């Protein structure tokens, strides 16, 4: 009893593809590129969405900033006590942070100040505090920051240039591990005292205040109470931040959408071209096969294998190339569209996020459609009278 898979038909299909090797190579190449493009877009989008979600999830429920003439100013720490009096507020922390532009590398570092005995508003800071030596100016730095400092020969310490032009030496104590790479990559954590010195900030001031609310349903109410107390403040809830992040993401994903549409459009042009007809040689070959006793389904099976071999190979190639491009090469060019500030921010590694749905979506967008485009015109020829085709 022969097994059901007819290896001779598969062999014939492979030979048939090899007989048109230039055409097969060209189609496989184009399909692989399209799958690669689509996959890269999906992989980057998924990774960044994951990063953003993790970042937003780790944010405090409410952030209070002082606003003057529409601009963000340092806020008085005394506000903290009044906020803590509001019913529903679990804790409030004055944050000291800012961006430091490192001219040699053309990047911005995010410097965050922490107090040794203060309640930390993020889990990652609890670990960071353990790595800091508060008896002297020291810091823990994100991986991206570490790489840049190493490259510029700052392996043990870094000299920050203060607003008055003098230098502030801070020792590098270790690596900072945030909850997400996007969050931690460009971050430098040190004592609040050192941050104030680097940014020339008064001791009675903070960059902003973050507030934790015990009951999530009361966030909006607490936010409105703070706003009533301090009309000159901007009170941002986690939901506002989520929307804001989503807006930035959506705006940038428009560019991706354009690339996505172009890729799909190109694919469908190929599919349309293929589905719209066979060459006279191909029709003749189908006619010959029918004339010597091949059934319509034998012809279609052979064409199915041809389509499957080309499209599945292209699919696998595209996926493997995209994985290498996004997660090994860090998606040069494409990643910058999303992460923005590409001139100023340190580069970061996209987290590896690979879900079955994405792979299935790309599979169904490429393989079955291409197979159908291969089979349909062959079916049209195969169902004609063989005599009509070979005459």
């Amino acid at each position, binding site marked *: 009893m*022969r097994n059901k898979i*007819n290896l*001779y*038909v598969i062999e*014939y299909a492979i*030979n048939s593809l090899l*007989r048109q090797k230039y055409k097969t190579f060209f189609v496989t190449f184009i399909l692989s590129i399209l799958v690669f493009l689509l996959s890269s877009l999906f992989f980057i989008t998924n990774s960044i969405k994951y990063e953003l979600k993790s970042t937003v999830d780790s944010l405090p429920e409410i952030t209070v900033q002082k606003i003057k003439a529409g601009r963000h100013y340092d806020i008085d720490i005394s506000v903290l006590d009044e906020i803590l009096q509001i019913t529903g507020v679990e804790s409030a922390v004055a944050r000291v942070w800012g961006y430091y532009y490192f001219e040699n590398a053309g990047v911005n570092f995010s410097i965050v100040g922490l107090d040794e005995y203060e309640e930390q508003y993020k889990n990652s800071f609890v670990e960071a505090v353990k790595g800091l030596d508060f008896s002297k100016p020291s810091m823990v730095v994100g991986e991206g920051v570490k790489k840049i400092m190493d490259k510029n020969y700052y392996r043990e310490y870094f000299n920050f240039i203060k607003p008055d032009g003098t230098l502030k030496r801070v020792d590098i104590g270790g690596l900072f591990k945030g909850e997400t790479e996007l969050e931690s990559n460009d971050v430098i954590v040190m004592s609040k005292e050192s941050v104030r010195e680097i940014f020339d900030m008064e001791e009675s001031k903070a960059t902003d205040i973050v507030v934790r609310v015990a009951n999530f349903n009361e966030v909006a109410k607490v936010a409105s109470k703070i706003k009533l107390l301090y009309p000159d403040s901007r009170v941002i809830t986690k939901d506002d931040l989520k929307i804001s992040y989503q807006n930035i993401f959506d705006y940038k994903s428009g560019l991706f959408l354009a690339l996505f549409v172009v890729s799909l459009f190109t694919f469908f042009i190929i599919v349309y071209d293929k589905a719209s007809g066979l060459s006279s040689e191909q029709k*003749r*070959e189908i*006619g*010959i*096969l*029918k*004339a*010597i*006793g*091949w*059934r*319509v*389904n*034998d012809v279609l*099976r052979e064409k199915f294998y041809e389509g499957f071999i080309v499209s599945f190979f292209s699919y696998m190639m595209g996926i493997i190339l995209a994985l290498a491009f996004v997660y090994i090469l860090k998606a040069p060019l494409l990643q910058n569209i999303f992460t923005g500030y590409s001139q100023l921010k340190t580069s970061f590694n996209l987290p590896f996020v690979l879900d079955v749905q994405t792979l299935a979506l790309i599979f169904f967008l490429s393989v079955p459609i291409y197979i159908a485009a291969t089979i349909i015109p062959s079916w049209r020829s195969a*169902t004609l*009278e*063989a*005599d*009509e085709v*070979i005459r």
Partner: protein
Amino acid sequence: MIELKEIIKEYQVNGIDTVMALRGINLYVRSGELVVLKGASGSGKSTILSLIAALSKPTSGEVIVNGDRISKLPDNFASDFRRHSIGFVFQKYNLIPTLSVKENIILPLVPMNLETRDIEDKLSRVLKMFHIEHKENQLVKNLSGGEQQRVAIARANINNPQIILADEPTANLDEKLSLHFIDILKELKAEGKTIVVATHDPLFFGLNIVDREIEIYQGSIV
């Protein structure tokens, strides 16, 4: 046994005009008989072969082969019929030029999913029978006309069919190769096969192996 009853075959040209290729043909070919259909180009000889091979269907009338009404066969059954019962040698051979001799010959066996040994046995039988063993792995496009014809005959015989149909088999051959083809026909007839040859080559007329010559003129038997 092949029987054509009141066959009319019309072709549509350019989707509008209709050309009548056969006008009420009645034909009976006994098993083991070698029949030559002769006539000018366009007289309808090839159409008769097409109908016998179930490559096309008559507009009206019936084609009966070994008791089966093959003019009524659905497409897949017609393919099965051709695979098992018919060996067709086409005028232009209809080989796939980029395949080797071996690959062309075993092409009818590919969908049958036979054991490799069965395929090899059948292949070696026809390779020997038509003296092309030494060309087995050559590409068909590199063969001479005579060699290509032998490959076409070998392919037509790979399933050892009872009926051999040959459409203008010597149209592309010189006299020496044409005589060689006639020798092959002798061998096939000696094996008891039913053979129908459509030709206007005078070399076939009056041959002692030919049982009957039937003249076709403008779609009718004269």
